[in-house]
């Protein structure tokens, strides 16, 4: 029950304030138990607000940092068509970041503060984006596996109890499906190409398979906050549940690609009716999350550079806006 998770009313409140807090709590509880939506100006427990702010801002940062591995390949895309597609995808990821920053702002955090935290290395983002994209086939594997895992995660988030988050996710999910399909197509073309191209595709799948499974987060017995998030209707399915579903989908799709998944332990458990996969290196996951992945410092450095190099554009825009306002005033 959601009501068990609410904090007790702080003692220093006046009787009227306490009454208002209690009424707010009762209202919040009812909204959650009816599986309805909380909006930014509604009363909400501080822990709910913090959890969401952390999750949404981390999600926004992931979209923004996630532009980098693919942006790397824009100038080296093998054809004009692939270059246009990749640019559209990277532009979408920027958009996703902006939708999510807007949603996070409704919880009382300024965008500038979130940006500062990111370039100061104080904010987290998905561990997956700290892996390098070393061949063109990685553009295929990222689209197919990384965006595929993201979609699996994000579709249930469209029903998250916090209205602005759910609405941002609806918009994002609509755009994501092209991301996964274009990745699948890249791999399919390579797989049907020369033996070297096919090998390049297989190696990319081998590289991205385990990190993409880890995108769903630690195993359920090592994911202390999941229960609370599920009680608040932020999260709808556990990490392991989503991971298992994802494995089941990939098992079928990889056959169409004519490639294999680098996991000999994949099996469908007839008893639990769930897909199972081989062991994952959770120490690696923790290391990458703690900032010691292959590309962590490079990613943050690149983001900082982009932010600083863009300062003159922001200044010019403000100066231009001021000038236009003065002109209008004079006219």
């Amino acid at each position, binding site marked *: 029950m959601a009501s068990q998770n609410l904090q007790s009313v702080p003692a220093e409140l006046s009787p009227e304030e306490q009454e208002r807090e209690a009424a707010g709590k009762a209202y919040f509880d009812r909204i959650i138990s009816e599986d309805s939506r909380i909006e930014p100006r509604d009363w909400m427990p501080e822990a709910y*607000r913090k959890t969401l702010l952390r999750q949404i801002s981390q999600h926004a940062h992931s979209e923004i940092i996630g532009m980098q591995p693919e942006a790397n390949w824009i100038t080296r895309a093998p054809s004009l068509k692939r270059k246009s597609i990749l640019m559209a995808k990277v532009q979408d990821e920027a958009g996703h970041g902006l939708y999510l920053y*807007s949603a996070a702002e409704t919880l*009382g955090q300024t965008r500038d503060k979130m940006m500062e935290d990111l370039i100061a290395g104080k*904010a987290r983002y998905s561990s997956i984006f700290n892996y390098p994209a070393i061949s063109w086939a990685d553009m295929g594997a990222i689209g197919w596996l990384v965006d595929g895992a993201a979609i699996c995660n994000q579709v249930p988030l469209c029903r998250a109890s916090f209205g602005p988050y759910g609405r941002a996710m609806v918009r994002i999910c609509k755009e994501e499906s092209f991301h996964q399909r274009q990745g699948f197509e890249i791999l399919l073309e390579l797989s049907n190409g020369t033996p070297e191209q096919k090998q390049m595709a297989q190696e990319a799948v081998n590289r991205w398979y385990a990190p993409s499974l880890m995108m769903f987060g630690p195993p359920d017995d090592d994911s202390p906050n999941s229960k609370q998030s599920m009680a608040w209707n932020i999260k709808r399915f556990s990490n392991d549940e989503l991971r298992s579903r994802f494995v089941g989908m990939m098992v079928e799709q990889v056959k169409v690609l004519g490639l294999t998944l680098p996991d000999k332990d994949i099996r469908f458990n007839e008893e639990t009716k769930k897909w199972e996969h081989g062991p994952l290196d959770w120490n690696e996951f923790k290391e990458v999350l703690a900032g010691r992945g292959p590309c962590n410092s490079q990613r943050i450095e690149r983001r900082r550079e982009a932010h600083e190099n863009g300062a003159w554009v922001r200044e010019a825009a403000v100066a231009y*806006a001021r000038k*236009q*306002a003065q002109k209008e005033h004079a006219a």
Partner: protein
Amino acid sequence: MSPHGNPEEPASSASEIKREAPKVAATTPAEQQHHEAPWSLWEVFVRSSRGLSHVHAGSLHAPDAAMALRNARDLYTRRNEGVSIWVVPAEAISSSDPDSKGAFFESPQGKDYRHATYYTKSEGVKHL
């Protein structure tokens, strides 16, 4: 890692959206010297096709209305989602108080006779 929450803020502050006022028209010389004034927040409304109303799509930051419109086009209509866009400074929007939901919307309560379903005697009568 430090959470993004703002521990200085009391729980009840979650009932207010922090909206920054557009700074453009009202900048003082002191603010002009500060080289990175934050861009103000704009709410974006998109008309998806002719004949439909503008619907709230989301928000964005921009230094003025002209750039807010351009940013809105790039952010919210990358796939022909709209034929017209409105941008409104977020601080210009007045809204009903979320704490007085009951009281504010009380008047239609108990006024079933405003709905066609209230009138049952005419059931079965054609074209009525």
